[in-house]
């Protein structure tokens, strides 16, 4: 199965073109990184997958079906979503943040506890963090809790929108390791948006470079490194010098 298919997708805000004729397929159970500068349209591509953004033209298929925007919540429950910053709900403690979706979907307490425990240990979050509030956690800890929340329902797709953008390099490297560990334990389709080429090289099986709403190149780490595309060459050079 190909979990996500874009076919000539475009997006306009008023007259402004954000995405232009995007066609791509996301491989199942692989990590795909969408990379580009701020304003390149990479976040918009991600939000099209979970229906936060409705495309102006073209076709988008998720799980080989057209998105049903009327019952979008059902689809989103199968897609984990984690963003940069403190997007944890400030009025709930960490346990409630992580388990909210499971509770609302009537999981048993036991099952919830078990799943939460597994996830927290996968991202090295201590047990006593459960009763803490987001503001009591460091940025890295918050990001780990955010990953647990997104993974709670064991979604088939996991979307990360600059999820590690605000972290210091050491913490970032730790979380990268943990993410790869999760991926080897329970493989799933991961699509991550980032502006950090190092991160993409470290994690992604496949990299999509976007500039001005157009896909410049799709390829593996080596293909991107040795690209002949003018923009990609410039982009790689700028980050590695």
């Amino acid at each position: 199965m190909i979990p996500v298919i874009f076919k000539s997708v475009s997006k306009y805000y008023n007259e402004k073109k954000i995405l232009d004729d995007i066609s791509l397929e996301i491989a199942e159970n692989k990590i795909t990184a969408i990379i580009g500068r701020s304003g390149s349209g990479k976040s918009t591509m991600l939000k099209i997958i979970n229906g936060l953004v409705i495309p102006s033209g073209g076709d988008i298929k998720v799980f080989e079906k057209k998105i049903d925007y009327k019952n979008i919540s059902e689809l989103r429950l199968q897609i984990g979503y984690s963003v940069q910053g403190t997007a944890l709900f400030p009025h709930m403690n960490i346990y409630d943040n992580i388990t909210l979706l499971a509770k609302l979907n009537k999981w048993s307490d036991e099952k919830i506890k078990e799943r939460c425990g597994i996830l927290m240990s996968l991202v090295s979050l201590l047990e006593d963090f459960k009763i803490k509030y987001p503001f009591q956690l460091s940025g890295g800890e918050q990001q780990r809790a955010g990953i647990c929340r997104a993974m709670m329902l064991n979604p088939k797709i996991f979307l990360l929108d600059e999820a590690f953008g605000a972290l210091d390099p050491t913490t970032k490297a730790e979380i990268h390791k943990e993410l790869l560990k999760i991926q080897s334990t329970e493989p799933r389709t991961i699509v991550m948006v980032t502006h950090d080429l190092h991160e993409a090289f470290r994690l992604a099986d496949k990299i999509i470079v976007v500039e001005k709403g157009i896909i410049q190149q799709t390829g593996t780490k080596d293909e991107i490194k040795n690209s002949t595309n003018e923009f990609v060459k410039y982009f790689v050079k700028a980050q590695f010098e």
Partner: protein
Amino acid sequence: MMKKILLILIYFTTTVSIGQTVKVGAKHFNEGYILSEMLSLLLESNGYQVERKFNLGGTLVCYEALINNEIDVYPEYSGTISEAILKLKDKITFDELKKKLRETDLEISNEYGFNNTYAFAVKKEVANRLNLRSISDLKSHPEIKLGLSYEFLNREDGWKNLAKVYGLPQTPVGLEHGLAYKALEDDQIGLTDVYSTDGEIPKYDLVILEDDRNFFPKYFAVSFYKSNLDGKIKNITAVISGKISESEMQKMNEEVLYENKTFSEVARNFLIRENLLVNNTGELKSESMLSQILPKAVQHLKITLIALVLSIITAVPLGIFIYIYSSFSKPVLYIAGLLQTIPSIALLAFMIPLFGIGIFPAIVALFLYGLLPILRNTTIALFSVDPLLKEVARGIGLTQYQRLRYIEMPLAIPTILAGIRTSAVINIGTATLAAFIGAGGLGEFIVTGLALNNTKLILMGAVPAALLAVLTEIFFEVLERFIVPKHLLKRLS
């Protein structure tokens, strides 16, 4: 056998008359209170229950209350009825007035005896210095500052026509009648309108200017009621007709004002003196200040609380509605804002033709008043929840209801609570004005105190009301601590 039937009949008729409640109104000043208390005592001594609705304000409020059966009877003045109520242009005699009323469903009793006419009073010293004897003499003294009651300024038989008839050049200022004597004494005004039976006239050493053009109609005090009032009640109250002279009335007014007697004491003493009480069993109650304040404070809280709860259960859902359907937000907030700009006393007055007097219209007015702060805070709070959180809540698959229930509302609660708190405090203040339309509460002391120029009474209402407002603030502060997680409170402040 006959005896038995008779006994049953007697039993039946007495229980009927005992069970019957008569609602007695009062005009909003000393004399009105004394006379209304007399009617009430007479009715009570004849076995009736009396509901005293004494804080009705001026003529039109009393009249509206009578028309809407909020009260059954109140003491009024013949001149007021012909000019302010029937709006007759020409002066008519007392008998003509009675005849005129026969065309309506209203009726008056025979006059109590005295004529309490409007009059102009100045200090004796000023009158002598400027050689003022009659109202005409004012023409040559345009420098005299007139401080007139609001009612007198606006009546048919008040300032406008009087100024025309006498050709007076002064521009008067309006002030509360109860404050006018103090203003006269301190020379802040040179002249005010008084009632000829006011107890202050001798006390402040005032003289009354002669109405040399015979402008003022006669103001004979009478009982005013609908013609379908029970004949028995008419007869019971009629016993004071012809019994009260002008000097007696002045004396009674003076007793209340300067001898520290309550108006019910003065009214009772008069009736006892005149031997008019059928059975004088009821003892005069002397209550401690706390036992007087407490029931009014409870009533005050009750009115405020009911209105507040209604405001909350209306404004919070409405706020959520206009958050979801945001195209409604402007018109709804605009209307709620408009309600807020109506002065509270005007909003209360506006309730009378719609809902009469008493608790209900007061609650409606307070409810309308309390809407905006809660409504505005609810919508603003919901609109200003961090957009990233809203997007994530959508992105992870929460439905609109779930987002509202688990994310947006909990985050909006501190701000909504602040709105409710504002409403509560505003309402406690505004509820003091509700006494003007007979809703009771702590405002009753203030209204009575203003009418009687009694500072102690005013404070008996004002201090507990202020205290209630402070307690409300504290209550909400504690409530906030319970409901809102600490770190969210910190973020707010």
